[in-house]
């Protein structure tokens, strides 16, 4: 099985895979405006279309930088109708989106903002911060006085930063109701798509490895316990693929929260375990930095760690399920 793509999605996926995180290539190929509205000079791609393309591209290149630097800023600029949309689409302004999951203790004091924003991918080089917390959104120039950043790399290779805000000025934006939640879910699902691409590559590598690696005079893939472990990886990742694509397809419907949290939960439980199992099946070679597996595994882990933990998403699912049960009960007695 593989990811079914439309012709357009396949073209975008190919471009994304070619450009990877290279900013100039992304600019040249016009990919920075992927999710910016057509009115503002972008391609106007919605989440439902962007996710399958991202997942496909993620099979050959990590998409973290693309998500943080292009997909999310474009979605935010479009959703909040920002004047910066054109500059973002044209690659003239590097923007980054901070969401509730990144923000611990931000507080507004009149016209300034103070607090910390943590582990924000892309924040190392961005010029504009788009802050989306519930209905209160804002833009902040990242060279504002009072704003300091501490940059580093994440385990999947993409750069990120912590931001400390000390009475930093901001431009308030009135966002349409639900924008922050929607962007938060888009961000979570985009991470899931990167992990999905990585996972499909992991499973292909692992299958090929055990089919050829010999120990005890035979391919290790002929040992039943290893076969069954490989089947679990394969079947689990097919199910995960189903969840990610379904969440993309249903992103604009009423079921968005449930579908996204299901995909993200699965990323942190079954896919994390599947990635570990893939290392196990590789044996020693899977433990080496040089071999491609490790970098792929780290992408699955980073996708799990950011934008709400697996337990956070299980808790949200639990609340949705309880509400469903109560509604069903009412419908029956009504």
């Amino acid at each position, binding site marked *: *099985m593989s990811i*079914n793509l439309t012709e357009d999605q396949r073209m975008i996926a190919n471009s994304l895979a070619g450009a990877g995180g290279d900013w100039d290539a992304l600019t040249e190929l016009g990919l920075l405006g992927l999710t910016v509205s057509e009115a503002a000079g972008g391609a106007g791609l919605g989440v*439902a279309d962007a996710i399958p393309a991202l997942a496909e591209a993620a099979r050959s290149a990590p998409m973290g930088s693309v998500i943080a630097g292009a997909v999310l800023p474009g979605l935010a600029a479009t959703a909040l109708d920002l004047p910066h949309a054109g500059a973002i689409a044209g690659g003239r302004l590097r923007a980054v989106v901070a969401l509730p999951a990144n923000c611990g203790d931000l507080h507004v004091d009149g016209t300034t903002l103070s607090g910390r924003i943590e582990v924000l991918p892309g924040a190392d080089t961005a010029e504009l911060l788009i802050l989306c917390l519930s209905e209160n959104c804002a833009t902040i120039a990242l060279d504002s006085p009072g704003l300091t950043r501490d940059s580093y790399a994440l385990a999947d290779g993409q750069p990120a930063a912590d931001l400390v805000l000390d009475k930093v000025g901001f431009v308030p934006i009135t966002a349409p109701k639900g924008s922050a939640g929607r962007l938060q879910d888009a961000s979570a699902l985009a991470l899931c798509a990167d992990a999905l691409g990585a996972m499909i590559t992991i499973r292909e590598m692992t*299958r090929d490895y*055990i*089919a050829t690696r010999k120990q005890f005079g035979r*391919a290790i*893939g*002929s040992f*039943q316990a290893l*076969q*069954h472990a*490989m*089947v*679990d990886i*394969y*079947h689990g990742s*097919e*199910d*995960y*693929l*189903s*969840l990610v*694509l*379904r969440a*993309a*397809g*249903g992103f604009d*419907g009423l079921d968005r929260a449930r*579908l996204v949290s*299901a995909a993200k*939960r*699965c990323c942190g*439980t079954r896919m994390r375990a599947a990635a570990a199992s893939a290392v196990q099946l590789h044996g020693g070679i899977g433990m080496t930095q040089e071999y491609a597996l490790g970098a792929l595994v780290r992408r699955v882990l980073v996708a799990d760690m950011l934008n709400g933990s697996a*337990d956070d998403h*299980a*808790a949200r*699912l*639990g*609340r949705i*399920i*309880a509400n*469903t*049960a*109560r509604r*069903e*009960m009412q419908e029956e007695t009504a």
Partner: protein
Amino acid sequence: MQIIDSDEDAAFRAEVRAFIQQALPQDIRDTFFGFRRHSWQQMIRWHRILADKGWVAVSWPREYGGCAWTPMQQYIFDEEAMLAGAPRLRPFGLKMIGPVLMRYGSDAQKARFLPRILSAEDYWCQGFSEPDAGSDLASLKTKATLDGDIWRIEGQKTWTTTAQHANWIFVLARSAPQAAKPQEGISLFLVDMSLPGVEVRPIITIDGDHHVNEVFLDGVEVGADMLVGEANKGWTYAKYLLGNERVGVANVGQAKAELKLLRRLALTRKRGNQALIDDPVFAAKLADLETDFLAHETTNLRMLSTLKPGGDASALAPFLKLRGSEIQQRITELASEAVGPRAAIWQRGEEGDPLDSYGLHGWLNARAFTIFGGSSEVMKNIIAKTTLGL
């Protein structure tokens, strides 16, 4: 991937729902929503109601009296019926021997047997497994000897579900004992269970119930017209049949209905001062189960969407069987937890505790799902070989 009905499918769903709403007897509904198992009689009643409507063979072509519904329509019908509390029709005629006869049977066999499957005049059971041929079905020992125009069948079948109710059995038997491979030299027969030499003995399972049987075939004589297709080609027909069986046990509609019941159970039970469904630890387990179900449902639809009508589902079947049976088991796991200490009570009498499907009995009964119809281990072997090429 969007799981939203097209306008056509939405209209179909509305039609199905309306029919079930008025046609499904209340007592059958109540059995399901009362956490009990449907009886055989309830299942037969529902079968006949559907037969009158012409909705009993959802995947069969119209020429044989089927609905010829698309996979999506079949899925919608199953989902609606299950969520309404309808019994599952047994697959042995409709999904197993029926399609085999359509593909490999003689015209006479089709004309004789297919209508009687639709009408429930015949009910079939499956004579495949033997005491020493379970997972290793190809090692079966039941013999069929041709004597003039008559096949004489001698052997013992086991784990035969609903043999106590069925009037026909399809039987795999070894017709060419000298064949080079165990898979060769097997034939498939249609056997009237009222014939001399057929004896059914009940097997009581660990849940205390009578689902399965031993079937003894003691020199049972059938005519050449009861041989399906060619002699010694039975393995081919059996593989086709098992593929269909395993797709069937994806059990998406039924699992969806069972999950609805489980939610209700968890809403009405307490843990500490709150509803069990609001307990974070139980809720996390339920969330994982619903997530895995959502994935299974979607994978199932993705796979079915690639399948042409009448196509060979054998490559997909092991995936659907594996996860479908696992999810059903996990539903019984959480259900028995939700029932609490009363789940430890052993069934009393015919009717049993109203919660008996969801207590220990459900859990014990569900153990069979990963064993029968191809064990999970065999499913994984097949996937490793055919899908992964290992």
